[in-house]
């Protein structure tokens, strides 16, 4: 815990709003994330209400593979670790480590989407399309929207990686990585909640 506090104490100041002395970029990003929480929160609430109303969905959910979901969870959790390590690296001005950790984060994000595409392919081949039933409509909407957010994060992280390789990242590197990191960790948190909801809650007998 002390190390984490130390990294904050040593971090150079980023741009602040003169009125409230809070970092404007972080405030803006958190307000953006609040909107995202409303979107995913609304979907989760609807899922729960419809599930209570429908009295189950156990049969439909038995076709979802919790093992594949677990692998994808490990992939995304690990990508969050590499993202925070990239931020720690930029704070100590270790440019090689920043490139390495960003590249791994992007690769893990692509791996997550690859596994998700593999899952979608399997479901669709078996006939479980979004129109198959309410569970599948929710499944594709929630995981699809999440995958869209992962794609956005991959694009942002790729841009930062290219900037790092070209040497143009470093002027405001910490702020850029911090903001991109906040978004990436948020995407991770959403999956942390979607995984038990879609893969585990209906598995319990």
């Amino acid at each position: 815990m002390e190390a984490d506090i130390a990294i904050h104490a040593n971090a150079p100041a980023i741009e602040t709003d003169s009125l409230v002395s809070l970092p404007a970029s972080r405030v803006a990003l958190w307000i953006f994330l609040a909107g995202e929480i409303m979107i995913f929160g609304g979907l989760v609430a609807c899922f729960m209400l419809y599930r209570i109303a429908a009295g189950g969905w156990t049969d439909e959910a038995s076709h979802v593979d919790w093992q594949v979901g677990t692998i994808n969870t490990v992939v995304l959790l690990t990508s969050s670790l590499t993202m925070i390590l990239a931020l720690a690296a930029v704070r100590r001005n270790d440019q090689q480590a920043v490139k390495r950790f960003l590249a791994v984060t992007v690769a893990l994000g692509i791996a997550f989407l690859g596994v998700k595409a593999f899952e979608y392919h399997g479901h669709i081949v078996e006939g479980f399309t979004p129109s198959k039933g309410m569970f599948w409509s929710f499944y594709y909407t929630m995981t699809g929207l999440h995958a869209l957010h992962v794609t956005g994060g991959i694009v942002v992280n790729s841009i930062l990686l290219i900037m790092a390789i070209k040497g143009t990242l470093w002027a405001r590197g910490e702020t850029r990585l911090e903001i991109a990191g906040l978004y990436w960790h948020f995407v991770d948190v959403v999956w942390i909640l979607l995984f038990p909801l879609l893969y585990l809650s209906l598995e319990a007998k």
Partner: protein
Amino acid sequence: MNTEATQDTAKFYFQIWEWLIILLVVGTVIVFMPVSRGLALTIVFAVAAIKGVLVVRNYMHLKHEHLIFYLIAGLPPLLVIIMLLALLPDIAFRH
């Protein structure tokens, strides 16, 4: 920042990741254990909530942030819970 502090920081983030993986295993295995469905689901979602808090507090550094960040992040889940509770009686009485 000195090398020792750098190593401590990386070690700290690794420890958080290890806890996340341990909790993932616990939350997944419990579903297949001979416990009641209600207990299993309670543990599954409690574990998921702990994992989420671990990421938000340590990787998103919310524990070092100003109170306003807690309010910004906390208001939407509160609104979702209010919506859920407001609609729940309708679902419960209709079915």
